[in-house]
């Protein structure tokens, strides 16, 4: 059981180049997320998806696009990379369960992608 797998793990881009980060989960989770992590900023939500074919913006969506064509995959695209997008990117997936008046979630994270834009 692989859980959440991110590819690639490392990448160096030149300003203006494009790339796609792939996230794959094998837990049949409905929700998937892309976060970026910068020193002192915690995990900031870029985009998320609540199911196949749906996407929504998070806190910091500018400069990124996403797609969720298959339930198990969530792609993050950078159309024209900028140095400000240098960061560590994490993908996560969760399922939501409700019962006894409570909403329960648990996120599983990928290993992260360290992206440097020069």
């Amino acid at each position: 059981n692989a859980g959440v797998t991110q590819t690639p793990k490392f990448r160096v881009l030149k300003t203006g180049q494009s790339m796609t980060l792939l996230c794959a989960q094998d837990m049949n989770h409905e929700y998937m997320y892309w976060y970026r992590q910068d020193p002192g900023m915690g995990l900031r939500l870029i985009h998320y998806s609540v199911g196949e074919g749906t996407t929504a913006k998070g806190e910091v969506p500018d400069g990124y696009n996403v797609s969720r064509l298959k339930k198990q995959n969530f792609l993050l695209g950078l159309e024209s990379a900028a140095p400000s997008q240098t960061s560590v990117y994490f993908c996560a997936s969760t399922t939501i369960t409700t019962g006894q008046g409570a909403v329960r979630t648990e996120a599983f994270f990928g290993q992260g992608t360290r992206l440097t834009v020069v």
Partner: protein
Amino acid sequence: GQQVMQIPQYQHVQEGEDFTTYCNSSTTLSNIQWYKQRPGGHPVFLIQLVKSGEVKKQKRLTFQFGEAKKNSSLHITATQTTDVGTYFCAGFWGKLQFGAGTQVVVTP
């Protein structure tokens, strides 16, 4: 919008000491979750609290959810070097949003 604030941002602890990190929300939470990220690693789920006033323990870690479900705390007793890392709280409002984290450094 909804967000969670964590304090302190940094915590330097002598091995063997206790410390507490706090999480506060601008709105009522349906649940609060805590995660730990080791240096160079990815966040790993620790625990989830769903009930008002709930207290849960995991060995030396004690988690508490406020009565109004707007705040939470993580208390670690007798800190060890294995406790090094960043601790995040997260709230769910149709999407999972994290606080900025508390980075814990342990001095032997």
